């Protein structure tokens, strides 16, 4: 197998580390990122004819039960 260029090896390692950092984020921050992901993906999915609803962070306010 070809030896990996050191710069590529560094990028792949850093990417893995970033995934662990994202996994360790607080729940509220993860939800905020999910909304950003929905915003990023929505134009692509709409262009494919999919019906897409992107959450707004206002939707995510805690529900107060009476």
């Amino acid at each position, binding site marked *: 197998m*070809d030896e*990996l*260029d050191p*710069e*590529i090896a*560094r*990028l*792949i390692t*850093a*990417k893995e*580390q*970033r*995934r662990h950092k*994202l996994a360790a984020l607080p729940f509220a921050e993860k939800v905020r*990122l999910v909304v*950003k*992901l929905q*915003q*990023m*993906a929505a*134009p*692509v*999915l709409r*262009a*494919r004819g999919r019906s897409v609803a992107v959450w707004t962070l206002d939707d995510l306010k805690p529900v107060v039960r009476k």
Partner: protein
Amino acid sequence: MEKTLQVLNELVRDGTLSRYAIGGAMGATFYAEPVLTFDLDIFVILPQTVSGLLTLEPLYETLRARGYTEEGECVNIEGIPVQFLPAHNDLLVEALTEAREVFYEQTPTRVLRAEHLVAVALQTGRDKDR
């Protein structure tokens, strides 16, 4: 993300990048419903350097001059963490050369073909892609 892609198109126009295409999970979104992670994988063909060394430093420097900051291996461009991955083997060069031209909203861009996305994921061989 549209502004991010506009910045990438400018980098191609000014010669900082020879070519780029969207890959990774966001690239797969053009064909399927992948599990997304919060970053944008951009495969790039860099202009040939005099030394022949594979380095992203000139690209990072250009982006720094435009006010875009590095976050680990990513550069935050218009609010999106972008990871640049140089085409370092024949598969990636082919994938970039044959990338599809598409529009993201009003902005032209390129995305790897589905078969190349799958081949690159297999070659990378991460557990999450199995």
